C-alpha cells in the first residue's frame, strides 16, 4: 500500500531524514504555527501518483490564500479519491533533483533512478537522457553504490550532497521493506543542505507482520488507512469500494471478490464493498461474519446482500451454521440475503438453513444468485 505523503515524511523525519517543515490540515481555518511561515505549499493527501499534474498541489503566498486553497482542495475528488486532509509546508528553494528506488517485481531486482532535474515531468527527462537508471540486485550496498555512480553527472559539491541523501533514503527503503521510494523534488543546496520535497513510499503489506513502526502508524491513523487498519485488527480484507453501493458482498477469495464487483458494475449496480473473508480461517467462529454483516448494515444505500462461498475444502454445513448465528447476531441487517454456495456439504447447509427458518435464499449458480440478489433493486420477480 502507498503511504500518504504526510505520514511517509513524518516517519522518515523521525529517523533524521530532512523534510520541509509542515503540518496536516483537515479544515480550512488553520492558524499555522510560528515555525511555518509564508509562502506555503498546500498538498492534497491522496494515495495516487501524478497529484501535482491533477491539481492536488498549490502554492499560497499568505495565510489568507492558504485558507482559500485549503477550501478549494478539501473535499475535492482528485483521480477518484476524496481529499480529506492537506499537508501545509514551508516552500523551500534549492537545486531540484530526482531520486527513486523501486522493486522490479518481474526480475526481483531494484531499479535506481537519479536525475539532476526534478519536477512533475520525469518521463520527459528520461526521453532527453537526463534520467540515470541502474538495475541492481535487491541489496542495500549495491543500491547505494548505483546511486553514487548515477550521481557522477552532477557537479560537486551538489554531487556529494545527493550521494549522502541517497544513502540515507536507501537505508530507509530497506529498513521499512518498501517497494517504492521516490523523492521528487529532492532539494539540494551548495552548502550540503538537502530536503525531501515530496516523498512517495509504497510499503509491502506482507511485511507489516515484522514492521512494528508501520503497524503503529496505520493503527494511529486508522481513518486514513481504514482497509489496512481493519486487516491488522481482524486478519482479513474488507474494503468499502463505494459508500453509496447497493450490494453488500460477503465473499472469499480476492480474485473472485473483485470479479463479483465487476460483474455487478457490468449490470449497472455498484457493490458496497470488497471482501476476502477466508472461509478456511473461520474455524467454527462466526465473529468475522458478524463483523462483515455489521459493516454492510452500516452502508447507507445497501439494499441487498450477496454471499458467495466457493468452498474448495471448507464444509458448507459448518459455514451454514456460522451464517445462521451471524445473521441472528446482526438484526440491524434488514435487507434480503442471497447465498451462492458451492462445495462439499451443500445438502447439510440447506438443512441447516431450513431448520433455522430459512433466513436467506440459497442458489448454487453464480449468475442466478446475482439475479436474485439484484431483484430487490430492479423490482424484477426472481
Amino acid at each position, binding site marked *: 500500500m502507498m503511504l500518504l505523503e504526510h505520514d511517509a515524511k513524518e516517519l522518515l523525519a523521525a529517523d533524521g531524514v530532512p523534510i520541509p517543515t509542515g503540518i496536516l490540515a483537515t479544515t480550512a481555518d488553520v492558524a499555522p504555527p510560528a515555525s511555518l511561515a509564508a509562502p506555503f505549499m498546500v498538498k492534497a493527501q491522496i494515495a495516487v501518483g501524478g497529484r501535482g499534474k491533477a491539481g492536488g498541489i498549490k502554492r499560497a503566498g499568505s495565510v489568507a490564500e492558504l485558507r482559500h486553497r485549503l477550501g478549494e482542495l478539501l473535499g475535492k475528488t482528485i483521480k477518484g479519491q476524496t481529499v480529506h486532509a492537506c499537508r501545509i509546508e514551508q516552500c523551500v528553494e534549492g537545486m531540484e533533483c530526482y531520486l527513486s528506488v523501486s522493486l522490479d517485481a518481474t526480475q526481483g531486482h531494484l531499479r535506481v533512478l537519479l536525475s539532476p532535474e526534478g519536477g512533475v515531468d520525469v518521463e520527459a527527462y528520461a526521453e532527453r537522457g537526463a534520467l540515470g537508471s541502474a538495475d541492481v540486485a535487491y541489496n542495500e550496498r549495491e543500491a547505494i553504490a548505483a546511486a553514487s555512480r548515477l550521481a557522477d553527472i552532477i557537479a560537486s559539491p551538489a554531487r556529494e550532497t545527493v550521494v549522502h541523501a541517497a544513502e540515507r533514503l536507501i537505508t530507509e527503503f530497506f529498513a521499512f521493506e518498501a517497494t517504492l521510494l521516490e523523492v521528487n523534488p529532492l532539494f539540494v543546496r551548495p552548502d550540503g543542505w538537502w530536503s525531501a520535497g515530496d516523498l512517495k513510499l509504497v510499503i509491502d503489506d506482507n511485511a507489516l507482520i515484522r514492521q512494528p513502526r508501520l503497524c503503529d502508524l496505520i493503527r494511529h491513523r486508522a481513518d486514513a488507512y481504514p482497509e489496512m487498519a481493519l486487516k491488522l485488527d481482524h486478519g482479513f480484507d474488507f474494503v468499502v469500494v463505494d459508500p453509496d453501493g447497493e450490494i453488500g458482498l460477503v465473499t472469499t477469495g480476492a480474485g*473472485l471478490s473483485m470479479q463479483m464487483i465487476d460483474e455487478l458494475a457490468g449490470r449497472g449496480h455498484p457493490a458496497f464493498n470488497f471482501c476476502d473473508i477466508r472461509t478456511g480461517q473461520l474455524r467454527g467462529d462466526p465473529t468475522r461474519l458478524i463483523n462483515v454483516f455489521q459493516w454492510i448494515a452500516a452502508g447507507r444505500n445497501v439494499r441487498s446482500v450477496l454471499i458467495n462461498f466457493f468452498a474448495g475444502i471448507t464444509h458448507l454445513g459448518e459455514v451454514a451454521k456460522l451464517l445462521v448465528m451471524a445473521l441472528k447476531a446482526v438484526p440491524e441487517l434488514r435487507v434480503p440475503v442471497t447465498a451462492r454456495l458451492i462445495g462439499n456439504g451443500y445438502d447439510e447447509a440447506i438443512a441447516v438453513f431450513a431448520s433455522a427458518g430459512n433466513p436467506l435464499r440459497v442458489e448454487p449458480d453464480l449468475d442466478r444468485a446475482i439475479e436474485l440478489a439484484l431483484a430487490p433493486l430492479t423490482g424484477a420477480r426472481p
Partner: protein
Amino acid sequence: MTAPGVVHVPFVTPDVATLVQGMTGRTGRRHAQLMRAYGTRIVGGVSPKSDSDEVEGFPVFKTCIEAVAATGAVASVAMVPPLSVLDAIREAVTAGIRLVVTIAEGMPVRDAVAALEIVRAAGVRWIGPSTPGLAIPGKLKLGFLPDVSLAPGPLGIIAKSGTLSYEVCHRLVGRGLGQSLWVGVGGDPVKGTRFADVLPSMLTDPHTHGIVVIGEIGGSEEEELAAAMRDLGCAKPVYALIAGRTVREGITMGHAGAMIQGDVGTIASKTEALTAAGAHVFTRIRDLVDAVAASVGNAKGEQACN
C-alpha cells in the same frame, strides 16, 4: 505439435515423488491426505519438531535432506506459515528438490526476492507464494485445487487468483471442458513462476488445445504474457479474464500484487497488450465460458469425429 525454437520441458510429471514440508501441522496433515487421495505420489513429510516418525501412514523426517535421501523425492509442497516459506525453500533446494510449491499467503517481498535468487541459482522451479498450487487433473495435485473444478480435458489454466479460477473452471467443467494442466501462480508481486513462464510448456503440450488466463489488476504479468505470446508465435487460442475493473488506484485488494500504481497495472494496459497479441479478453465470466465452449469445445468435437 512443437513450435519452432521451443524446447519441450514438461512442467511436472504425473508420478513425481513429492514431499510435504510442514507435514505435522493442521494444514499439512490434512492436505497430504487429500493430495494422496487424488493420486499424487506423496512419499513423505518433513517436520523438524515432530516427535513421531510417521503421520497418517506417511514417513516423517526431521530435514529435507534426510527425506530426499530416504524417498528420492524431487518435488515438495511447503505447508508452512508465511515467515517460514523462505527457509522451507532454501532447505528444499539444498536437499536437491527440483519443484517446490509454497501455498502460504503473506510472504514478505524481501523474502520472496531472496527465494527467487535461490531457486534461479539452482535451476529449481518454484510455484508460489500464495497459490492453491497446480494440477494435472485426474493424475496429480500439488496443493489444494478443489476437486469439484478439476477434470481432465483440453484447457491449460494459468491463474493469479485461486477462487476465481475455481469458479471459471467449475463452469467450464460443467460444459464438458476440463484441463490438461492447471497452474496457480499466485497473487503476489514477486513470485517463482509467472504467467509467461508457463506458456512454453502449454504451447508444446499436445493435450492442451486452448489456454485460459485468469488475471487481475496490478503488476505486469499479463503484459509479459502478451509479449511471450508474440515471441513464441502462440498458435493456440488464449482466453483471458481480468478482474478488478472497478478498483481504484493505490488500494490493495486482498492480493498483495493487486494494486494499481499510476498507469502500471491497469485493466486498460492489460487488455490492450493481450488483445494485440491475439488473446480474447473478457470482463464477464459467462462470456469467457461461452467463447471457450464455442471454439475449443467445437474443435474437440471435430477432432473426436475425425
